[in-house]
């Protein structure tokens, strides 16, 4: 129900606003904002690969957090029912350990540090 209300409120605001607001069409007004300059080039450009690298890493860890949740819910109850610690905690430690090894590998590969484009690197060298 909150979902319906959460949709109705924005839509209602849009309707109210459409009744209130003026509309004075003018071609220059619609120009894409670029700090007051005439826009140059298109927006559909190539962008930094880094955003993809991080996303790939994210997919791995996101799935893994899903797998941790059921364990976390069970954990305390299981211990109270007398499951030995090694059996309740051991496998999860191993699981997280493997993940941490993966993270260390990605870290050393430089996946989590920001890659500079060759041009920016050249520029940086000149400055230095």
């Amino acid at each position: 129900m909150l979902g319906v209300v959460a949709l109705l409120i924005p839509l209602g605001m849009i309707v109210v606003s459409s009744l209130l607001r003026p509309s004075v069409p003018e071609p220059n007004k619609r120009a894409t904002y670029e700090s007051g300059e005439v826009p140059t080039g298109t927006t559909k450009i190539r962008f930094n690969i880094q955003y993809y690298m991080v996303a790939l890493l994210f997919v791995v860890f996101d799935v893994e957090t899903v797998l941790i949740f059921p364990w976390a819910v069970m954990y305390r109850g299981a211990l109270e029912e007398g499951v030995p610690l090694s059996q309740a905690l051991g496998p999860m430690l191993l699981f997280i350990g493997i993940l941490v090894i993966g993270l260390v590998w990605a870290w050393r590969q430089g996946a989590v540090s920001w890659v500079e484009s060759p041009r920016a690197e050249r520029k940086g060298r000149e400055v230095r």
Partner: protein
Amino acid sequence: MTPTFTPLQNDAVLLPERLVDLLGLGEFGVAGEVVAAFLGAFLVANLMMAMTGVAGPWAKRKITAAFTDRIAVNRVGPFGLLIIVADAVRLLSKELIIPDGVDRPAWDLAPILIASTALLGFAVIPMGSGIHLADPEVGLVFVFAVASMTSVGLVMAGYASNNKYSFLGGMRAVAQNLAYEIPLIVVAVSVVIFAGTLQMSEIVAAQAEPLLVIAGVTIPAWYAFVNPFAFVLFVAANMMEIGRNPFDTPEAPTEIVAGYQTEYSSVYFVLVFLGEFLHIFLGGAIIATLFLGGPAGPVLPGIVWFLIKIWAVFLFTQWLRSALPRFRIDQLIEVGWKGLLVLSFANLILTAIIVGVIA
């Protein structure tokens, strides 16, 4: 050897059921329940909208002004409070400028998505005084799922605007969300280990037990006291989630104008703005529920304590906004992946071991 563990069944009365009793809607059967659910949702949504209304145009200005030794709004109404009404009318009655080359359906949908997903998260938050809309067993996961849907809206807004600043802002929003999401959830898991359930009401109930008594004052077992390390981590990750200073790189007014919301005007801007502030309060509500005992507190009724707690979180975000410089995007990625992630895993393992030893 498989342990059977059933979480305690919760028999607390939720807000829609209360409304059914209160208004005598029970005799109308399903229709009555639907009306009650709608009324309840409407109440909660408007309560949160009111909070946002006070926070956005008024409290934020006043707080920032106090930090920078200014007076801020004081002309319209007492303490300038009527500026809220004035701003609402002003923004809603502005012309909606649709820039060239925007991706029409996506550009229109993004503000609605940002605002409504932020609002949706409050469905499972127990606000005290019986204000609690729904209490599914997976409440915690639901909150995180809904809160992360906002990032989709941000990307849509950034990509569809056909503006370079918006595009950069959208990309930064994704990178940032990816960096915070895992630490946030892993820290939340360490709370789940203590509580043994994902149900919000159970998590709050688990924090009601006394932790220790100092000089006659009973300190409840709020997870902020039980596990302060996790609390600090969660607050930091939450700052990233809601995109406030020092992690407001997706907006970064001094770098990329306004990020993903550069091309939005009129009511669409209101919706994006509203979504952001709702998100701050949703973050505050999650912090309050997970770490600060939800609506628990002495003397005052639950809802008042709940509001005090979420406003405290809001004040904290505004304090940081005035006090800290912004992280650069590459620094932010490193903080997320190298700092927060490692610390949150350390926290998880430590919590598991401590719980294992004392249990």
